[in-house]
């Protein structure tokens, strides 16, 4: 619920003041078109352009890439992205459309790319001018990611790529893709390599993007087919056969456990949509009539809402504690829980919201009588995207059990 006031360093305090002043003047008004719940459901060019314009403005104001060096288009500051994020959230800004670029591609390119590549790619990534997508999962490689079969064959100083990627969010708008593929079929993990690939210029010329439809009825993610696509060797990150290690950098950041804080504004939601938080549940329970009284008076509903309040506060307190070395026994123990907690808490919050709504939870987007515009059932369905993507909750629990608690590896 309420954010606790936490003390800033002098640099952070000054930066926060600047950010706040800029946001007071420049936070955009209501969007001209209806916005999706998250960047992963951007369906139209109108939605994209509105959000890209916002990202560009925020980047130009120094609110994105704050902790990256100036040479690669960053702000050259220390621990200021978190401050920018807090201020953008507080100002109720729209979200940043280039989520995969900011959260996954940027840290990966930064840690594993050649200097020239970083300088060329990162500024347009931060500004949102280039949208990025991620080519990891395949029909036969989900939780068992190292089973990736998309293959790159060497041809002179180029590579020829063939294969099939799935669940590729934002591919329909993406200029670039981070791509995990195989360069050696004789070994599993050590046969993987990692590329950045310009896919937009290759549409219809070796790259096909086909939309997949989610259980909510929305599009936003895709399958991507590579047929004899030629890619230069200079687009390779790190050494041949090191793809798995590079992918770990990507996944660590995707799961909120990396050392570079991902730029965020507006959280997972826009302000025009509702926010999936316990605070919203309480507001909903005040407005919803249940058993002849407001739902906020029902002791069971109250208990369930407070459980969510406590879990959310606990997650925030975890993040705070993860910065206090003396209060941790294992350096990755808290960081590796982020993705699991965030996705499962959001899922339960949406489920409780539907319980509060009762029969009215049956009403979907096109029904004028739907509470909150029918967005809670949609949020609930979408929440499974988060407990499945980026390593399912089951995979997350394996990782925690094995890496933190030292239990034997489950196959």
């Amino acid at each position, binding site marked *: 619920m309420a954010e*606790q006031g936490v003390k800033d360093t002098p640099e952070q305090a000054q930066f926060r003041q600047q950010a706040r002043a800029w946001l007071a003047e420049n936070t955009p008004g209501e969007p001209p078109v209806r916005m999706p719940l998250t960047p992963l459901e951007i369906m139209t060019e109108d939605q994209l352009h509105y959000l890209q314009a916002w990202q560009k403005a925020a980047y130009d104001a120094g609110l994105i890439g704050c902790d990256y060096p100036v040479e690669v288009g960053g702000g050259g500051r220390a621990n200021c992205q978190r401050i920018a994020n807090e201020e953008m959230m507080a100002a109720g800004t729209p979200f940043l459309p280039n989520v995969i670029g900011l959260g996954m591609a940027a840290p990966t390119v930064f840690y594993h790319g050649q200097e020239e590549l970083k300088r060329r790619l990162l500024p347009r990534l931060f500004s949102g001018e280039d949208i990025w997508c991620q080519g990891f999962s395949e029909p036969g490689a989900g939780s068992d990611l190292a089973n990736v079969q998309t293959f790159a064959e060497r041809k002179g100083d180029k590579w020829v790529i063939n294969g099939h990627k799935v669940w590729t969010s934002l591919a329909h708008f993406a200029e670039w893709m981070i791509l995990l593929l195989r360069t050696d079929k004789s070994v599993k993990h050590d046969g993987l390599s990692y590329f950045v690939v310009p896919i937009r210029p290759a549409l219809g010329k070796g790259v096909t993007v086909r939309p997949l439809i989610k259980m909510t009825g929305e599009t936003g993610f895709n399958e991507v087919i590579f047929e004899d696509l030629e890619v230069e060797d200079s687009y390779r990150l790190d050494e041949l056969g090191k793809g798995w290690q590079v992918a770990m950098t990507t996944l660590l950041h995707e799961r909120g456990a990396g050392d570079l804080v991902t730029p965020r504004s507006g959280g997972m939601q826009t302000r025009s949509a509702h926010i999936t938080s316990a605070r919203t549940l309480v507001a909903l329970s005040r407005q919803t009539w249940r058993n002849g009284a407001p739902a906020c008076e029902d002791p069971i509903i109250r208990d369930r809402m407070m459980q969510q309040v*406590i879990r959310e506060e606990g997650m925030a307190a975890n993040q*705070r504690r993860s910065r206090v070395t003396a209060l941790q026994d294992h350096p990755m*123990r808290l960081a590796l*829980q982020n993705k*699991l907690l965030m996705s499962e808490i959001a899922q339960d919050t949406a489920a409780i919201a539907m319980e509060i709504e009762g029969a009215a939870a049956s009403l979907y987007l096109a029904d004028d009588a739907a509470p909150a515009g029918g967005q809670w059932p949609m949020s609930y369905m979408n929440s499974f995207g988060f407990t499945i993507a980026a390593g399912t909750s089951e995979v997350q629990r*394996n990782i*925690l059990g094995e890496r933190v608690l030292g*239990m034997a590896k489950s196959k």
Partner: protein
Amino acid sequence: MAQPDDFGFGEEAALLKESARKLFSEHFSAGTLHALVAGDPDPNRAPQVQWDMELWQQMVDLGWTLLAVPEAQGGVGMPLVGVAGLVEEAGRAAFPCPLLSTLSASYILAAAGAGGEAALADIAGGATAALVISNEHGSWTGAETSVSGEGDSLQGTGYFVQDAGKVSHLLVCASAESGPALYWLPVDTDGVTVAQDAIVDLTRDQAHISFDGAAARRVCTDAASALSEAMPAIWTLYAADMVGAGEWQLQTTVEYVNQRQQFDKPLGFFQAVKHPLVNVMVMIDQAKSLVYNAACAVDCEVEKAARYAHMAQASASDMAAFASSRSVQMHGGIGFTWECYVHLFFKRQKHTEMLWGDAVWHRARLAELLIDNAA
């Protein structure tokens, strides 16, 4: 008032926590605990007060009992975050001693104003104390006390008194002419009868205490205010105790499932074992973070202290229940025996889980603060 990002958990607090962990790991293993308290498995055994007074005296000499006494009364006046770190370690060892009770009494006395100063000075001088604030239903709101005070004399019986057999003094809530008041007296005062309860938990002692005209010093005439001001600190510390005990349960159970083989694999290989233990860890971490969150609020943002202490207690109580059930279950047959140490912590956790309101109770209070009082 802003809170420090690190909860105010500074070098001094880190040193105290680390030295406590070292002291317990060197001098008080679970095996030592078992030998000390689990000599007699008979469920009909008479209640006994079993503890290591010599080791406890070392802790008193280290100044642990006066950490929460303000400097003006001769104490250390340590912030609650630091005290919570110590209590977490004491909980990890399940060390039987009146540390929690004495710290709790200190917070109530400090909230009692000028009248509490002499009693605080007693604690600074080495006194230890138990709280006599609950009635026969386990309720501790001053208004419902089952002890009455007339002038300087106490009458009636107080219940669920923790560590009664290990302390020198009692802090009593009794109804007086002007409403519930707080009294302070040595436990060996004439007219005081300590009757030990036969409890499940072997690591604590608990009693009901009868007063028959016992002479006591009145320290405060508004017990209800002092109690409600001090309870967030007390809840936070009991939650810290559960977190420490939970860490022991997790570590011990993980070690067991890593070593025990079935179907030619260590038990931890199987996800039916691995995943619940990860869930225990996740719950411990939530509770632990919320403990330091609450402690920092008590130290730096007192208007939010009750809210965050309810969160810490609710989280720690649920965790204690789950960690306890999984620690026995994952140990299999051996976990169900008296000789395996896990039952000691299982019993301690179940005791603490209920003591100052269980998770549902704390969430109900939290709902009052966040829903009813915050339109």
